[in-house]
């Protein structure tokens, strides 16, 4: 984004805050199936930590973190994780997103549902993060920011 003036304090604050927001986002995703939160909220937190660095540092600093061309493949990976989990359980004889039919050996159905929701939410989090970052990148595209 176009910057009015150079401010090392804002950049330092964003650099200090961003990793903790990202760790909290992963915490929300991982604990999403038995506490408040989940894939969407955790993914939005991850996107907030990435966008904080992008707003504070501009394109030169943002290039070190997640590059602009990497957002679309990340979103596709997230959607593919979601639908692959659903379709694999469908191919194994259950319904769509019926986690108890997932082919993971050595697990009873309760643990399979637990693990299936976890896999789904990692996919949702990746897709939400990548798409929110992609919206920001497309909004600032024509801007001559450095």
């Amino acid at each position, binding site marked *: *984004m176009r910057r009015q003036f150079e401010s090392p304090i804002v950049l330092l604050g964003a650099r200090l805050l961003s990793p903790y927001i990202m760790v909290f986002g992963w915490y929300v995703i991982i604990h999403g199936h038995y506490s408040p939160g989940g894939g969407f909220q955790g993914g939005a*937190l991850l996107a*907030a930590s990435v966008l904080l660095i992008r*707003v504070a540092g501009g394109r030169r600093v943002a290039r070190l973190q997640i590059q602009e061309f990497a957002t679309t493949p990340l979103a596709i990976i997230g959607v593919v994780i979601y639908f692959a989990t659903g379709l694999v359980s469908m191919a194994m004889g259950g319904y769509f997103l019926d986690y108890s039919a997932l082919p993971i050996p050595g697990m009873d159905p309760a643990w399979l549902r637990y693990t299936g929701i976890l896999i789904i939410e990692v996919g949702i989090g990746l897709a939400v993060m990548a798409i929110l970052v992609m919206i920001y990148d497309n909004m*600032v595209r024509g801007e001559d920011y450095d």
Partner: protein
Amino acid sequence: MIWEIELIIYIFLALSAVVALEVKDLLVAVVMMTIFSFLMALLFVAMGAIDVGFTEAVIGAGVTGILFVVVVFQTSRKSND
């Protein structure tokens, strides 16, 4: 929740909404809308909807604020009406 604190949150909610509607500087309006979202999230949590409050705090006070700031910097900063 203690009703005095909730009353204070309601008063600041109405204040931030009125300021966001009436102010001429659009950046101030964006910040006021972020404050509105955060107070709304506090009220959602106080009413027991923790998941809704969490989503409101993350989306309304985090990502939407950043996107509105980008829009303000790409258009004009002053409101015309």
